[in-house]
């Protein structure tokens, strides 16, 4: 099914392009929203990402649905990073700052927060932390790949990730505590 859809998209069929867009638009909108702060920016990144995907789809060799989704996700993430670079959304990141900050050794509370709330906490992270955290934890990039994408060193990527984890843990504990208070 998807293979025929991809073949039609490769021929420039607008109907097939719309079907592919409808299939993945919401999912990748959430991906874009993890990298950029505002919804308007996320829409712009999504549109540009699909535009690049449809223009480059003639070179794409379809194997399975997972491969198609991974290809599209990579395009979206690259577009989001490019958007952050263009808008100077990525602050200058230095490893010395992060080394001093270590994550809390205390165990995580039994999180009863729903997925939407956790996503909102991730979005509250500073842009540098959030970007590295997203790339490492959710996209599965290595520190070397992240360093190559963001033009930083491996140590900087590691330190940014450590800081992101520590801050997110702190936010999770705080959110959990507030939720408990609301329940009581």
């Amino acid at each position: 099914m998807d293979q025929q859809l991809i073949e039609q998209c490769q021929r420039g069929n607008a109907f097939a392009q719309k079907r592919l867009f409808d299939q993945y638009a919401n999912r990748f909108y959430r991906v874009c929203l993890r990298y950029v702060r505002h919804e308007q920016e996320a829409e712009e990144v999504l549109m540009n990402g699909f535009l690049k995907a449809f223009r480059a789809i003639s070179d794409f060799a379809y194997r399975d649905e997972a491969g198609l989704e991974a290809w599209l996700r990579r395009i979206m993430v690259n577009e989001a990073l490019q958007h952050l670079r263009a808008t100077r959304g990525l602050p200058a990141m230095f490893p010395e700052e992060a080394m001093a900050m270590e994550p809390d050794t205390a165990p995580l509370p039994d999180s009863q927060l729903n997925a939407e709330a956790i996503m909102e906490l991730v979005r509250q992270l500073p842009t540098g932390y959030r970007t590295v955290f997203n790339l490492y934890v959710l996209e599965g990039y290595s520190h070397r790949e992240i360093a190559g994408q963001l033009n930083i060193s491996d140590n900087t990527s590691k330190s940014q990730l450590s800081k992101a984890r520590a801050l997110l843990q702190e936010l999770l504990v705080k959110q959990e505590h507030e939720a408990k208070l609301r329940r009581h």
Partner: protein
Amino acid sequence: MKQSSEDIDQVVRQAFQSLPDTPPPGSAFDAQRVWGQLNRELHPAKPARRLAGWWWLAGMLFLLSGLGWYVRSVSSGSPSGHETVALVERATPKQLNTSTSRSGNKKAKEQEGEGNTATPETALLKKASTANRQPVVTRNQSAQENIRIPEPPVTEIPAAMADQEMVVTTEVSPPEPASVSEPKVLAKTKPTASKLRFPVVHVNEWQAEEDVKTSLHRSERLVRLGTGSHSFDTPEPPQLQITIPQRIK
């Protein structure tokens, strides 16, 4: 420490995997709106606009040419109609005869061959009936049809009135040599106008009318002398010749 880091990574991964494929609650994201913008980028409508532009231009040219033709035709009127009217006024039967003799129109010959002794009335009726089919009538055909002057019908005078002195005046409308005119012009003229009228007038009444006419036009009794080619230029003074008689010796 590592355990804690992996825990938080796991919590976040699980949370994101459980998220539905819908925009976050409270989001104003509209996939169709974004697709509309994307579709415009993917399939720009420039060729269609160009095509529409060409069609528009062609339509405008056609409209302008049609308008120009209409204005020209209206401003010039019907030149053939005016021409025929002028010809009606000028044409003499002789000219018409010559024109008919020259004509090689088959239709005219056919009609002649059919023994169509057309009176002006029939000619007019024919013209009127064929006016729609033949907007332009050839000069020769119409001339041939209308040149035939009908013979005035003979009126029989009753025997009782035979002994009386009668003057019969016939008012015959002149057969219109307007045979060359357009059928529309001929159709407008009433066929009844060409009917012959024979007013029967007593001789005394006729005499009275003649007296009135003569009184109205007194110049009829005047006689003009000379050729009429006299010029009113200042005449040369007459040269007086004085002849002196010679003395008789």
